[in-house]
């Protein structure tokens, strides 16, 4: 872009101009939905605003600016426009993005490669149609949309009556009208799951099911006696403005997944790996089998995951991403726990003196801190669970996540969830040696993947398979 040259007084006026005002009530919805992009790209945003894309609000699949152009963090921060957006698709590249959702191609021509020839990339309307044809096309679309909505509503009514077969048929019919509808697709999956609720290798504990996904709320891995809780799908405000590494706060969508009800114990680790790397074991810790495994590195966890995936039918075990971990730790809450309640839920330095305390070596000049005893982890599940039935999320041991430590905003597909590659990995959650103020669900701790500390442990995550499929480690 050419550099702008203005007289000095123009720049002074620009500097003195007030900052942009926050969004006002009544502001056009597309400008709000487009977020920071709308500050400069007003006309493109308005074009997008008249498309069906701007009306879709189904979790992470909304086709918004970042959906096609990528997060483009560098471009957003560079006011001189020296850094371009991550992607500027042109020609056939546009069609490649279209078919990500519209997999069966154009409903009229079944074309998969030339969407851009008829559809405006933002507004979607075909500028080449004459007004009469445009009106006819709009009528067709409206009829199709009405049929879709009607089938969807019928399916949802039947689902409420737990008539899974009939509801599934209605959702299939809705999908026929609108093949790109993730809402109908997910509802159909839910019906199929309710008809065949089992997950290979797991027992279902209890009779509670998640209404949107149809997945059982609690499952137990046979053989390892590993209890897992379903973390329901949803969006949440990820991060915190309190700490430099947790800014900016941004919205992240999480698909449903299972997370260990407890941190992995020394007993479970030993039965999988035949060794126990933990520091807290031996005579002084008679309950070691129930204590969380610790002194494990991220790389050790990968070896353990390979082992557990080998032993369980279909695999699907992994570490949680840091976004999944924070979402599960918050359990739907937006506010941190008050300090006076925190110790009911988390083993921290203030409540983690071991049953058989070991006094540290004294020095003549030492200040005694509290009782002067070194803290230690507790058996898993000894404190109260959070709202989603997960124990020890904020204390006992810190937990490895799959993610590479990279700045926010978070995007699972920007390389930070790569299974290999250089860089530090993220640990989440406070531990028995931390003060209460470290028990903040948003705090991130980067660590080298080969480092082991006596306060770092692990909690397994599991990706539920699609109905009728076995889990695979790569599914997400």
């Amino acid at each position, binding site marked *: 872009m050419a550099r702008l040259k203005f007289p000095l007084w123009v720049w002074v006026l620009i500097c003195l101009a007030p900052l942009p005002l926050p969004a006002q009530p009544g502001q056009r919805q597309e400008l709000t939905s487009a977020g920071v992009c709308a500050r400069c790209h007003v006309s493109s945003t308005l074009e997008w605003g008249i498309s069906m894309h701007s009306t879709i609000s189904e979790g992470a699949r909304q086709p918004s600016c970042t959906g096609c152009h990528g997060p483009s963090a560098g471009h957003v921060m560079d006011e001189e426009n020296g850094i371009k957006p991550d992607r500027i698709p042109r020609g056939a590249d546009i069609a490649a993005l279209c078919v990500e959702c519209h997999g069966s191609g154009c409903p009229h021509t079944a074309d998969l490669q030339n969407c851009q020839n008829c559809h405006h990339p933002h507004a979607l309307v075909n500028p080449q149609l004459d007004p009469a044809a445009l009106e006819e096309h709009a009528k067709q679309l409206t009829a199709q949309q009405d049929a879709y909505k009607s089938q969807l509503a019928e399916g949802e009514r039947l689902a409420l009556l737990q008539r899974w077969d009939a509801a599934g048929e209605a959702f299939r019919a809705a999908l026929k009208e609108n093949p790109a509808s993730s809402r109908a697709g997910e509802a159909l999956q839910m019906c199929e799951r309710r008809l065949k609720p089992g997950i290979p290798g797991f027992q279902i504990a209890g009779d509670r099911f998640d209404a949107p996904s149809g997945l059982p709320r609690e499952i137990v891995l046979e053989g390892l006696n590993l209890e897992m809780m379903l973390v329901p799908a949803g969006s949440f405000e990820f991060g915190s403005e309190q*700490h430099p590494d947790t800014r900016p706060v941004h919205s992240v969508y999480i698909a449903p997944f299972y997370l260990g009800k407890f941190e992995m114990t020394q007993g479970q680790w030993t039965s999988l790996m035949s060794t126990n790397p933990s520091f807290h074991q031996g005579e002084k810790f008679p309950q070691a089998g129930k204590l969380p495994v610790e002194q494990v590195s991220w790389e050790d966890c990968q070896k353990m995951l390979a082992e557990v995936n080998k032993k369980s039918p279909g695999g699907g075990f992994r570490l949680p991403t840091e976004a999944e971990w924070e979402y599960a730790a918050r359990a739907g809450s937006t506010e941190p726990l008050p300090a006076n309640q925190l110790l009911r839920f988390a083993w921290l330095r203030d409540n983690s003196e071991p049953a058989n305390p070991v006094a540290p070596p004294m020095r003549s000049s030492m200040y005694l*801190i509290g009782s002067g005893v070194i803290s230690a982890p507790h058996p898993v599940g000894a404190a109260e669970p959070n709202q989603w039935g997960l124990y020890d999320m904020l204390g006992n041991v810190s937990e490895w996540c799959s993610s590479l430590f990279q700045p926010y905003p978070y995007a699972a597909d920007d390389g930070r969830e790569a299974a290999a590659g250089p860089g530090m990995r993220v640990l989440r959650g406070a531990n028995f040696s*931390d003060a209460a103020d470290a028990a903040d669900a948003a705090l991130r701790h980067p660590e080298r993947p080969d480092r082991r500390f006596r306060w770092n442990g692990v909690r397994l995550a599991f990706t539920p398979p699609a109905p009728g499929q076995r889990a695979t480690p790569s599914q997400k």
Partner: protein
Amino acid sequence: MDLHMTRRRFLQCGAAGLAASCLPGPAWAASIVAPGQFRRGGMVYRPLGKTGLNVSLLAFGSHTDQAYKLPGGIRNILSAEGQARRDRQISKAIDLGVNLIDVYEHEGQWEPLAKLVKGKRDQLLISGAYDNPEFIGANIDRLARLYGGHIDLYRVRSETVTFNTSSLLDQWDIVRRAKEAGKIRAIGIACHMENTMLSALQELDGLEFLMLPYNFIHAKADYSQFLPAAARSGLGLIGMKPLAAGSIVGLDPRLNAATKSENSRFMLFNSTPGSRAILPAVVEELARSLNQLPDESLPQAALRYVYSKPFLSCTLTGMFDDRFVEDNHAALTRYDQMSREEHSALDAARRLTSLTGAGWLPTEYQWLEEQWRA
């Protein structure tokens, strides 16, 4: 004059003008030697690496005067008189522009200093360290509570050759977590061996500053591998023991007998029974050199040597006397390059100490001679 300019040019000119208006006068422009250095009042400030903190070149060390400590007990506490003296010296140093005060747990000064600096906490940087590594987390919490929610600088310390031991890495992990939680602004390490320093650069993620011994006799770091590596990583460096734990004070025969150094038990100029034999020729050379510095003491020249090193952000020195505070500050006010006479005096002192072995240092600091003699 062309009044048409690009936005970048306008911002550059504006920033430069703003910075220029904040400087006391053009006379200081020639004095700037370290990148980002500036002078306010009689004090010079330098950036501490990439921490965003500006530290005064002269900082107040943590050691307290042995002569005023209460006998017995497990705490290392000053008598009421000793505490009053120390409080007065710190207040004087703050008035002279010192903004970094070190408080080592062992010296029992956390509470007294917190009380003293109440009301001016935001103008000061407090640096701390622990005494017992088993309680490092609780130690940081207590310091943070005492000093308004955070401590500015916190360090672990190492006596080992390399940092790759689980205990030290454990401590570092706790310190990093405390920084992430907002309880520390900058984290570092104090160490006394070059291998440890190189190791720290490799092993300690997030290392922001390092404290190393540095004076005109023990200046091995001048030609080590460490300094270039530290510069590449943007590490802030703090010089410790600029007066060799006070022993350099004892090399200057002209200092008032009442002026007592931290460790003045070995005086080269007192032929007391049991002390090392004086070497007259070398002593005479030192005395002659010092006579060329009529208004400057050897410790002041020694400090100016340290101040003149642009790679050091500041130097921590123990000050047990009001006069030391004034003298150490006065050495900053003459900010020209060091003179030939000063270099001659330092060379003579260096020769004298090399001929006496490590004996001119107290036993507990003789490792300085073994590890750091340049």
